[in-house]
C-alpha cells in the first residue's frame, strides 16, 4: 500500500478544474490577455500624446479603442 494515494489524497471533482476552464487554451487566460490589452491601451495613450509623428497620433484612437474593447472582453475570460 506504500506509495498509493490515500482516499484523502485522491483528486476529487472539486479539485479538478471545470470542463470549460480545462478546454480553455493556456495562452488565452485572463492574466496574460489583460496584460496585453493594458499594454495596447498604454501604447495608444503614448501615440495620442507623443510629439514626434502625426501619423502615430492619427492611429492612436484606433489603438486605444481596440485595447479598451479587448480589455472588456478578456476580463471575462477564465483565470
Amino acid at each position: 500500500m506504500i506509495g498509493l494515494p490515500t482516499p484523502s489524497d485522491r483528486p476529487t471533482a472539486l479539485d479538478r478544474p471545470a470542463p470549460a476552464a480545462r478546454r480553455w487554451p493556456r495562452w488565452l487566460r485572463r492574466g496574460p490577455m489583460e496584460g496585453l490589452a493594458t499594454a495596447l491601451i498604454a501604447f495608444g495613450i503614448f501615440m495620442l500624446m507623443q510629439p514626434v509623428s502625426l501619423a502615430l497620433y492619427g492611429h492612436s484612437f484606433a489603438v486605444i479603442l481596440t485595447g479598451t474593447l479587448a480589455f472588456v472582453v478578456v476580463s471575462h475570460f477564465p483565470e
Partner: protein
Amino acid sequence: MMDELSNSPTIALKAAAATPDRVARRLQGLSDRTLAWLFISPTVLLLLAINIFPLFWTVYLSFTNYRANRPNAPLRWFGAEWYHRILSDPDIWAAMQVTARFVVATIVIETVLGFALAWLIDKKFRGHGFWTTMILLPMMLSPAVVGNFWKFLYQPQIGLFNYAISFLTGVDPSSFQMLGDVSLSPWAIVIVDVWMWTPYVMLICLAGLRSIPDYLYEAAEVDRASSWRQFCSITLPMALPFIMLAVLFRGIENFKMFDMVNLLTGGGPGSTTEVASITLKRQAFEAWRTGYSSAFAVILFVAVFGLANIYVKALNRVKSR
C-alpha cells in the same frame, strides 16, 4: 443576540401591524427582489437620464453636423468624418502635447513630493497629526476657489507669490508675470496643481507605507541592512502598487483637467496652456461645432476609459495583497 433572534418574529409582526392597510395591500405579494428594484429604480433612472443618455447622445452627435446654436438646421450624417479631421488636425495634436507635458510634470513632482511627505509623516514625530491635517487642507478646497485665489497670488503688482520670489531671488516682483508669460504660465498651473494634489498622493503613499509589516524591518536590522538598502529592498517595492495607484488616478484626473486652467489662464497666453479640455470647450461653446466637439469628447472619453481600466486592475492588485 439569541434574544433578538427569538424576538424577531414579534418585531416583524409589530411592523406588519403598524403598516397602514392601504400600503400593506399594495405591497402584498411583492418579492424581496421586486422591492429591491423598487428602491433602487429612482437612482438608476437618474443615472440613465444624466449619465448614460447624454453619453449615447454625444456618440450619435459625433457622426452628424449638428450645431447647438442652430438646432433647427437640417441634420446631415457625417460618418467618421469628424474623427478623421480631429486625428489629422495639428492644432488638436498640439493641445494633446500640452496636456501630456502638463500631466507628466504634475505626476512626477506630485509623486516625488507626496512620497517624501508620506515617508516623513510615517516617522510619527511630535505633532505629526497636526502637520498631517495642515498638509491635507489644500486638497479639501474647491478647485474654483483655489483657481481664484492663486490668480490673486500671481498678480504681478499685489500678488504675494511674486513678492516671495523677489524676497528669495532678489528680482523685481513686477518684472515677471506668472500667468502672462509664455514660458512661465504652464509652470504657474503646475505649481497650483502640485500645491493642491500632493496631499492626496501623500495619503495614498502613507497607506502603502503603513501596510508594510514591522517584522520585515526587524529582519533587515538583524541582517545588518543599511537604511538605504531597507528603503530599496522593502519600502519601495512594498509601496510601489500604492504609488502606481496614485500615479494612475492623478494621470486620469489631470488628463481631463479643465477648471483650474480655465480660471487661471483660460488656455493663454496664445495657446500655451490650451489643454485638450480647453480646446474642447472652445470648439463646443465658442465655435459652436457641436458634432466636431462631440467626436473629440468621445476620443477623450475612450482614452480616459482605457486608463480607468488599468486603474481598476491596479486597484484589484492592491486589494489582493
